[in-house]
């Protein structure tokens, strides 16, 4: 009778902790331009290789190479760069405001700006995004959403369009295809699939785009959504933003060790891609591919965007306690803004001076918006929507028991 | 024109005299046939005397409280045609107890809290007094909506100590009302000594200081000088006469025995649980009646009436049970006839009927006389021992005291048992002590093993 060694429990660990550098070799990458681009109607099963490789367009010198290079006019690239810069500066200002207690809470997307901004440019009006709290780029890349109104929501003041009912950053903009953000994780992914199914049922042309972090893919809702998307060939894009960290939990705890999240899609029967999230052109190209696949009734696509959460999870988190401080600098995929700026300069469409000037211009615009928003009050000074409004919108029409309870509240 | 004389009606059973209790007309009034002229009282009931024809009142035959012989002139009317003065025909006997109009003096004055310097009833003829008693619940039209629920807590938790008609607001000047609000006192619980029950400052102070408990409980510090002369007339006079007669002529012998009614009570509650909804709830009384009916079979001499003038004791096979009943006017003893023929529920219903008849004055004639033995009980106020007065001319009366739970020794064990005393009195002229004791022991045996009650 053979003697078996004692069993052991494997608890995954990140390769780096505070004090000793991370070994990023775990991150498998592909040389820029080396990954093939199949036709958008390719059978899902054939995308197995794309689920482990890494689609990249910009090489280290900033040149756009390979079959995924998108046809994008330099003006639209400049607009993309400007949107990324605006998102980063906005995050920095709001972090500051939170420290001054003008906001109770804030969440940045430092280092991931390219994914939301480029993806938004690949969608069409009427498509519906089901975002998490780290896709503010979807809104900041639009010119029809007022910064002042966003800041009013962050400050829960009298002009907050959702009347001070949600935590800051949990925006809701149906007209901008931005579904109301929920604090619960992954709940929006099956909802996005449902929305897409509805569009299909009605013979519409709009598609849905679901968003989820690497950590939340462990939620059952994520797997259910993949199944429903595959079963009904729902016209939806499911974006897994793998920024390596879920608060203090490395992506291996979410099941990323020795595999990729994109392979989950192939396993269920979805066309799946794994793409360099910090490569603006690659993000745009892959998003365009998935959008076309969906819009031509060829069903859903799962895209894993590799990136790095450069900042803390939120203003209540301090990453220095669980990971090395220099991780982002050493992260193989670099900084999305720097890489696009280098590319634009390389093709003669941008200069350092214009970059500086744009940066200053954006700062002025954001500071002015903050001042304007503050005129309508902040959480601190108590000029928030009247408590009477909490009784509205609980039901379509206010039932008698709520009218009576408001009388007891006395406001 | 002619004279028509209405005489004192003969109400039956050889009643010799009646007492004039109230007038409803005065000389000079025009009256119509059947109009209610006066109320007269025998020891049985109060009877209304109607006008026999239309006419004008010429003269009244007596003053309130006066005793008139049957057949005596009551009212003299001036009528069309020649009247009836010539022949002295006996008036047709009055209908069964009249239509039950309340004796003008009896109930109405008692219930209405019209304290104050008006001892004599409002002038007759106002025609109002008879109606005063039946005042509809006056729904005062308060300027403001009814008091909010919180006020009702106060009034509900402590029933208003002052007998005010429900819905009447306490009379008080603005100054008194404001002080009451400041002192957190609900005026509805303050007795008003002023005219028409108005609450004076002194009343408020008395309430606040001594915490006036009820209408009667005057604060120890305030002197009271009020006196009220109440003539002993009507039913009260009858009761006084009967009690005096019974005490004077009957040598009472009282015998008190303790009865363990634990089983009886258990049976009673069991029957109520099963049949209560359908047949009505049973009190202890029907069981006692049953016990008496059976015991009297062996002791007929207790179920008897003694005419000491004729020197004759009449024993009865029937058991006509006198039920001592407290009414607004005083004690009355309606009769449940042939109790021997009634089962528990019929007996209970019968007792309720006759008691109610007595209370409302609507008791039929035969329900007010002819009892062969009487039961008296003060219910929960039963006390430990009583010495009941025999309902003359009967020879025995059984009094029921209260039931209490006490530790008893049974088979060496201390157990809680429910015990009740029976205090009975007997006419020692016709019932010897030994017979009385044995009769009560027979009743006790039946009550302590209730199953025996149902064995003929």
């Amino acid at each position, binding site marked *: 009778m053979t003697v078996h060694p004692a069993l052991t429990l494997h608890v995954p660990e990140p390769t780096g902790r505070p004090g000793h550098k991370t070994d990023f070799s775990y991150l498998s990458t592909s040389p820029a331009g080396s990954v093939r681009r199949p036709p958008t109607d390719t059978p899902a099963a054939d995308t197995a290789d794309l689920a482990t490789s890494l689609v990249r367009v910009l090489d280290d010198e900033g040149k756009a190479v390979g079959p995924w290079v998108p046809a994008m006019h330099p003006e639209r690239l400049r607009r993309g760069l400007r949107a990324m810069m605006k998102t980063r500066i906005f995050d920095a200002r709001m972090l500051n405001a939170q420290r001054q207690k003008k906001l109770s809470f804030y969440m940045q997307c430092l280092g991931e700006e390219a994914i939301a901004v480029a993806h938004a440019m690949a969608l069409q009006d009427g498509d519906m995004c089901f975002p998490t709290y780290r896709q503010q780029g979807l809104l900041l890349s639009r010119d029809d959403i007022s910064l002042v109104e966003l800041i009013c929501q962050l400050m829960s003041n009298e002009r907050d369009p959702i009347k001070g009912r949600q935590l800051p950053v949990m925006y809701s903009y149906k007209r901008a295809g931005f579904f109301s953000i929920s604090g619960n994780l992954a709940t929006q992914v099956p909802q996005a699939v449902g929305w897409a199914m509805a569009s299909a049922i009605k013979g519409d042309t709009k598609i849905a785009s679901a968003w989820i972090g690497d950590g939340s893919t462990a939620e059952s809702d994520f797997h259910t959504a993949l199944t429903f998307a595959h079963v009904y060939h729902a016209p939806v894009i499911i974006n897994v933003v793998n920024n390596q960290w879920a608060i203090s939990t490395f992506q291996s705890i979410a099941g990323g060790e020795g595999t990729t999240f994109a392979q989950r899609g192939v396993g269920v029967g979805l066309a799946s891609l794994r793409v360099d999230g910090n490569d603006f052109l690659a993000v745009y190209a892959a998003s365009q591919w998935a959008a076309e696949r969906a819009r031509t009734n060829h069903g859903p696509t799962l895209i894993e965007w590799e990136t790095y959460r450069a900042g803390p999870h939120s203003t209540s988190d301090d990453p220095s306690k669980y990971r090395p401080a220099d991780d982002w600098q050493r992260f193989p995929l670099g900084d999305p803004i720097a890489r696009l700026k280098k590319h634009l300069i390389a093709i003669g469409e941008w200069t350092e001076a214009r970059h500086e000037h744009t940066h200053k211009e954006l700062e002025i615009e954001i500071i002015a918006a903050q001042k304007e928003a503050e005129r309508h009050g902040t959480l601190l000074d108590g000029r928030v929507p009247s408590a*009477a409004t909490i009784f509205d919108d609980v039901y379509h029409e206010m039932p008698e028991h709520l009218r009576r309870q408001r009388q007891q509240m*006395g406001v | 024109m002619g004279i028509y004389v209405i005489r004192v009606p003969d109400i039956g059973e050889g009643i010799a005299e009646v007492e004039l209790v109230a007038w409803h007309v005065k000389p000079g009034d025009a009256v119509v046939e059947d109009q209610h002229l006066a109320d007269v009282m025998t020891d049985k009931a109060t009877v209304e005397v109607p006008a026999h024809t239309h006419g004008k009142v010429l003269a009244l035959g007596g003053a309130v409280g006066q005793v008139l012989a049957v057949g005596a002139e009551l009212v003299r009317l001036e009528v069309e045609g020649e009247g009836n003065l010539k022949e002295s025909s006996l008036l047709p006997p009055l209908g069964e107890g009249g239509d039950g109009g309340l004796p003008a003096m009896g109930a109405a004055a008692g219930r209405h809290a019209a304290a104050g310097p008006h001892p004599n009833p409002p002038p007759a003829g106002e025609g*109002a007094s008879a*109606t005063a008693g039946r005042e*509809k619940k006056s*729904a005062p039209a308060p300027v403001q909506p009814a008091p909010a629920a919180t*006020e009702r807590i106060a009034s509900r938790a402590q029933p208003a100590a002052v007998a005010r008609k429900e819905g009447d607001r306490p009379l008080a*000047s*603005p100054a008194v009302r404001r002080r009451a*609000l400041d002192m957190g006192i609900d005026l509805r619980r303050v007795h008003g000594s002023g005219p028409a029950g108005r609450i004076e400052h002194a009343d408020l102070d008395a309430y606040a200081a001594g915490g006036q408990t009820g209408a009667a409980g005057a604060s120890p510090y305030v002197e009271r000088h009020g006196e009220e002369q109440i003539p002993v007339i009507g039913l009260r006079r009858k009761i006084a006469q009967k009690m005096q007669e019974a005490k004077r002529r009957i040598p009472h012998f009282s015998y008190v025995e303790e009865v363990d009614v634990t089983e009886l009570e258990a049976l009673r509650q069991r029957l109520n649980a099963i049949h209560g909804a359908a047949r009505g709830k049973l009190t202890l009384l029907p069981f006692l009646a049953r016990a008496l009916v059976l015991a009297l079979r062996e002791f007929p001499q207790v179920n008897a009436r003694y005419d000491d003038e004729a020197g004759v004791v009449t024993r009865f096979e029937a058991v006509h049970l006198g039920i001592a009943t407290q009414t607004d006017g005083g004690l009355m003893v309606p009769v449940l006839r042939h109790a021997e023929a009634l089962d528990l529920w019929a007996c209970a219903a019968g007792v309720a009927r006759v008691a109610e008849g007595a209370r409302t004055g609507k008791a039929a004639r035969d329900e007010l006389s002819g009892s062969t033995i009487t039961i008296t009980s003060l219910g929960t106020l039963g006390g430990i021992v009583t010495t009941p007065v025999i309902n003359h001319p009967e020879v025995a009366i059984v009094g029921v005291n209260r039931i209490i739970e006490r530790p008893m020794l049974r088979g060496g064990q201390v157990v809680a048992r429910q015990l009740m005393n029976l205090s009975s009195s007997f006419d020692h002229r016709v019932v010897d002590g030994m017979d009385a004791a044995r009769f009560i022991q027979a009743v006790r045996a039946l009550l302590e093993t209730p199953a025996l009650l149902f064995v003929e």
Partner: protein
Amino acid sequence: MKEISTKLLVIGGGPGGYVAAIRAGQLGVPTVLAEGAQPGGTCLNIGCIPSKALIHAAHAFEQARHQAKGSPLGIRVADPGIDIAQTVHWKDGIVQRLTGGVGALLRKAGVQVLKGWAHIDDGKTVTVKPNEGEPVRVRCEHLLLATGSEPVELPSMPFGGAIWSSTQALSPDAIPKRLVVVGAGYIGLELGMAYRKLGADVTVVEAIDRVLPTYDPELTQPVLEALKKSGITLHLGCKVQGWDAKHGVHVRSDVKAEDFTLPADRVLVAVGRRPRTAGFGLESLQLDMAGRHVAIDAHCRTSMRNVWAIGDVTGEPMLAHRAMAQGECVAEQVAGKNRRFEPMAIPAVCFTDPEVVVAGRTPAEAKAAGIDCIEAHFPFAANGRAMTLESTTGFVRVVARKDNHLILGWQAVGGGVSELAAAFTQSIEMGARLEDVGHTIHAHPTLGEAVQEAALRALGQALHV
């Protein structure tokens, strides 16, 4: 926007509002009062006070003309006339003195008055917009609604131009030759009779079949006779359909066969008043309402915590003195005292000629409430003082319980009876009985003696009748 906070915010500076504010101020409660027009509200500016002034002036002028036609008093008057502009000026003087007085009282009590129109944002926040200048947001712990009432407008004859409400009738630029009054309620008759005395040819149209329908017929009979005697034309059971300059007022009659028209230079529409509950965001509080009025309990509390309401906005009886009493009641509760608004009686006075006063229950109301009561009249024809005032029409009536003679109500009609209102409510409030009034010495010769005599008569001990 400028923002202030206070403990008590009162919306409306009429009798209810300013009394509440003054009382609260006296009790040390930080109070803000928002009033869009003048302090004193309808009563002081366009209601009770100016109308009594006009009535007095009209009466004086009518007396002058009456004496000029050979007076039994032997007075000689030549060619009496009236300068209505001066009359209005005199009236305005009284109004200014009173509104000024109220302003001073408010300041003395330390009340902060915001001159502007309030708009309710929620149960504890109100934005006050002045006619000019920056709006102010007021946050309060207690909100008191005292917005009063406004005249009811007939859709077929909206106010403006020749169509007067009581407001315009109290500041006439000239005495109209022909005046049609729509509504024979107390406002319609008070002003109708005044204008008759000022020389106008007055016609009154009323839908119901009698004048002063809220009072009992016996009480208003002398007023009806006075109306006829004064030459006022009365159309009862008639409804107005509309107005045009050429024909005047179009009237449909239940009684007559065809419709008819009444030529008119001015038309006074006085068909009632309704609570002012619209136009300032009140509906957003979703309060429990009683019909069109704000529902309140015996503490003047509305259904919302720490939101109170007093005066006409809370419904009938719409009287200034009720509003004032409620105002005091609320102020004292906000200051922490335990108060209830439960008067035994609220008097109502109608300043027609003869005047009418009611307090407590009429005989009909007492019977309806199932109370066995007695009533007695004393006619002014038997009152010496009345004779010396050439005004012997009318009577005083008392209603009391039969069993204990507790006085339930007083009613009176006659010249100058309005001043008896105090005696009436005092006796009811004190819980007096007929004997109390009957055996109180009333000065001779005064109209008051009729009150004593009425009580004695109810006791069957009348002396002078």
